[in-house]
């Protein structure tokens, strides 16, 4: 079955193509991406906290905005935990290697 009729990564700028960078650069790119993702999750959580505080203080207009912000923060956090679990699993797998 043909899923993709062309390589979706073919048009990517050269600096994003992993094969043309060395291991150290790749590691830094990876760390940067993780940091960005964590910051984004943190931002969603902060927004949710602020809206919850506003709700408690009676300063909100729409109750659903509070619930949606909380739900977004929770989903983003679940995604982060899932990714962390996978990274740690891979790390453990490497550590278990015997020579």
């Amino acid at each position, binding site marked *: 079955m043909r899923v993709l009729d062309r390589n*979706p990564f073919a048009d990517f700028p050269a600096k994003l193509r992993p094969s043309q960078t060395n291991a150290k650069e790749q590691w830094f790119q990876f760390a940067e991406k993780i940091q960005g993702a964590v910051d984004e999750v943190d931002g969603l959580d902060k927004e949710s906290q602020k809206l919850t505080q506003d709700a408690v203080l009676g300063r909100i207009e*729409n109750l*659903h*905005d509070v619930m949606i912000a909380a*739900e*977004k923060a929770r*989903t983003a956090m*679940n*995604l982060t935990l899932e990714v962390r679990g996978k990274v740690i699993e891979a790390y453990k797998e490497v550590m278990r290697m015997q020579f």
Partner: protein
Amino acid sequence: MGMFHTIDVSASGLTAERLRMDVISNNIANVNTTRTEDGGPFRRQLCIFQARKPMASFPLMERRKPQVVGNGVRVTTIMSDQAPFKLIYDPNHPDADKDGYVRMPNINIVHEMVDMITATRAYEGNVSCINASKDLFNSALGIGARR
């Protein structure tokens, strides 16, 4: 089009329906109001919904097709219904004219109740949509999970 686009679209629907609910409640509250600041009885108000302009779309798809997903709904204006007022014969009313007729608001309470039910159901529909997309996220997170 981010990860939470569906939720943002549904949230705009929730906000719009809630505003419509406010307007309907105001109409029901003023069903017997014969005096307003502008003079004359209260006029029924109604919300005008408009589709929000679609924003940036998924870049790989955009090159192939210019079609983009919309960005939800918003209430552009709250207009007043220009239907004629109801005339009710009540000579003792202070706002009655010389023939004894009082001009009452052009609000049909049954109509407003039906609108209220549609607003409630539309709100519930948007909530279901949010829950469905949340379920999608959660089942996507379950990909590859060890049982």
